[in-house]
């Protein structure tokens, strides 16, 4: 009996062991779930139901919904605060930086680019020989040298500002407000702190409240579309699909220039990619539900002109 017990145990262990070894192989289900989302109409209603539930049952919502609520309130306050902060303080930080970067570097650096250009110029002159009777010749100017230095300062201040605003001392005030408003003592900080940077640990970290509803996705689409003017007259315009990856701040501005994920070459692709990039740069900041920041902090946008060309 003991022997059989031992054998049974060993066999169990062996089977479980094998099973655990086999699991890593059987993992074909890593499908991007978001692909499915826009088609699934049920999602929207589920979400509304969930929201209603949150309002009614304040006591039950021990883990997941509460943080959402607390988060919402806090985020709203935070964004308000941030807006106030952003509205007032921006002038000072750019000013110290701007004079630093804008005035002296160009002066200091201008001589260099000029020198480089002059170096490059002698070449064009002989190149003229090859030109036809009209004496036309063209040469690329040095592209990078002068533009870059002053460009940066214009961009850097913005992203630098907002993160600061997030972690400013007024965070405490937020938390106090949250504590006063919410009855359970533990949950407010517990839900509040990880809400923005990290998903709540219990349950599915990408729970329904972190997802964007269909109408919210539509709203985002509607914010980008009007700014997009793709080159539809180009030959093969329908194939010029461009995918961008956007990193967003909580206030809906871009953290950094959009990243072009599609690889392509040729003038037409360049123009298409530029038109997509201009669209997202031009339409920021985006109005998005603050409590779902986690869902939209990092998004992909596909610019696909096929429909516009009508086949």
């Amino acid at each position: 009996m003991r022997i059989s017990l031992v054998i049974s145990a060993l066999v169990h262990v062996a089977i479980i062991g094998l099973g655990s070894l086999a699991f890593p192989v059987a993992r074909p289900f890593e499908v991007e779930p978001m692909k499915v989302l826009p088609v699934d109409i049920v999602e929207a209603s589920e979400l509304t139901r969930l929201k209603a539930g949150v309002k009614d049952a304040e006591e039950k919502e021990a883990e997941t919904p509460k943080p959402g609520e607390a988060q919402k309130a806090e985020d709203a306050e935070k964004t308000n605060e941030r807006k106030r902060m952003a509205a007032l303080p921006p002038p000072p930080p750019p000013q110290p930086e701007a004079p630093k970067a804008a005035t002296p570097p160009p002066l200091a650096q201008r001589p260099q680019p000029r020198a480089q250009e002059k170096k490059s110029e002698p070449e064009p002159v002989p190149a003229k020989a090859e030109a036809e009777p009209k004496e036309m010749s063209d040469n690329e100017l040095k592209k990078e040298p002068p533009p870059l230095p002053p460009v940066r300062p214009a961009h850097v201040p913005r992203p630098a500002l907002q993160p600061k605003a997030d972690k400013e001392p007024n965070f405490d005030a937020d938390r106090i407000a949250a504590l006063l408003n919410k009855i359970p003592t533990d949950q407010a900080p517990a839900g509040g702190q990880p809400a923005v940077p990290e998903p709540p640990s219990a349950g599915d970290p990408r729970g329904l409240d972190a997802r964007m509803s269909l109408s919210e996705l539509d709203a985002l689409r509607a914010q980008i579309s009007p700014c997009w003017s793709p080159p539809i007259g180009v030959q093969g315009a329908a194939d010029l699909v461009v995918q961008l990856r956007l990193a967003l701040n909580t206030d809906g501005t871009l953290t950094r220039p959009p990243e072009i994920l599609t690889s392509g070459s040729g003038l037409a692709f360049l123009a298409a990619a530029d038109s997509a990039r201009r669209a997202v740069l031009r339409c920021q900041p985006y109005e998005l539900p603050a409590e779902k920041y986690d869902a939209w902090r990092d998004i992909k946008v596909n610019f696909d002109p096929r429909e516009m060309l009508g086949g």
Partner: protein
Amino acid sequence: MPQSKIGVFQRLIARAALLLLTAAAVQAWPTPARALIEIDITRGNIQPLPIAIPEFVGASSEDAQMGADIANVIQANLFRSGLFAPIDRSAFIEKIGDIDAAPRFGDWRIINAQALVTGRVARQGDGRLRTEFRLWDVLAGQQMAGQQFYTTPENWRRVAHVISDAIYQRLTGESGYFDTRIVFIDETGPKDARVKRLAIMDQDGANLSYLTNGSDLVLTPRFSPTSQEVTYMSYGGGAEPRVYLYNIETGQREIVGDFPGMTFAPRFSPDGQRIIMSLQSGGNANIYTMDLRSRRTTRLTNSASIDTAPSYSPDGQRITFESDRGGSQQIYVMNADGSNQQRVSFGEGSYSTPVWSSRGDLIAFTKRYAGRFLIGIMRPDGSGERILTEGFHNEGPTWAPNGRVIMFFRDVPGEGGGPKLWSVDLTGYNERQIDTPSFASDPAWSPLIN
């Protein structure tokens, strides 16, 4: 002792099993993928791109004046294309002084400029003109293009056109068409006794000059794709019209081919080595080519009907033409050797003057339907027909070298009416009249001059 040993053993096994189970469970639990939201933007808002073109800077007042002229020509070119919306200069905040320093992008963003062109004009010691420009992406704060050109000061308009082409190309992804010319038939005098002269002008209407004096009737001029030559039909003093070849630079002209009957509807092959045209004999007309070097002619069609208006595809492999062999005028496509002739137009009405686009993807045509003349485009297989413009009389489409814009002439009825040149974008938008000193018909667009 053995019992406790076994007990320990069992517990060990149980613990191991438990460990394995948890390990398996952890592994089997789906790890939440970092699912990025992905949205599709399928609808855009086609708008002309707001572009700021300050006057090009110049050290001397003379240079500054030329800088202003060049900037104005560029601005007018881009505006006419319909794809750009130049911003009124009075709105500019920053005054560009040095084009080697990056502009203050914030100042240009405020006035909603998305692109900015800065430039400089400087006369060199040897009398030549150096023109530089930089194209900036205002939103991204980057330079997109920068070039410089040397030329004689009289050539400043061409420099402006070449720069316009560079800007157009970088921003639209298509090659430009500003550094081009147009030949057309200038028409003066009363309606019943028109004097028709062969005229040539820049694409923007500047530098107009006349190539013939109006003593002979001239019709249907066509540009050579490779040289400064034009082919056209003229009576040339004879009773029957003939196809002529005319060298714009030397002014020399010659008859193409030695045929008994009248020849008409000439056009160059894409390599400029041959002329394709119609030859009439009896009540029929067939299509011939003539090699300009060997002067050898080849007959391509042989039908008891009128085959005319031939036009090569840009690769020279196929030819489109019109024929009434099926009862009404329709568009046909055949191989360059005359084989595989197929009708491609099947819509209502009759189709004529097919012209293969310089980029090869479309054929433009004149369509007569319900007493009106329309200009339209279709794919070379006849599908995707689209009408770009219609009216009392529209005729004679010709393609811009980038295959994006079509020019044609539109006649207006009535005593004082007459033909004028018009252009329309491939999308059917941006229809505009081309300024000519008098009535004008039969336009033909040159290739890029470079």
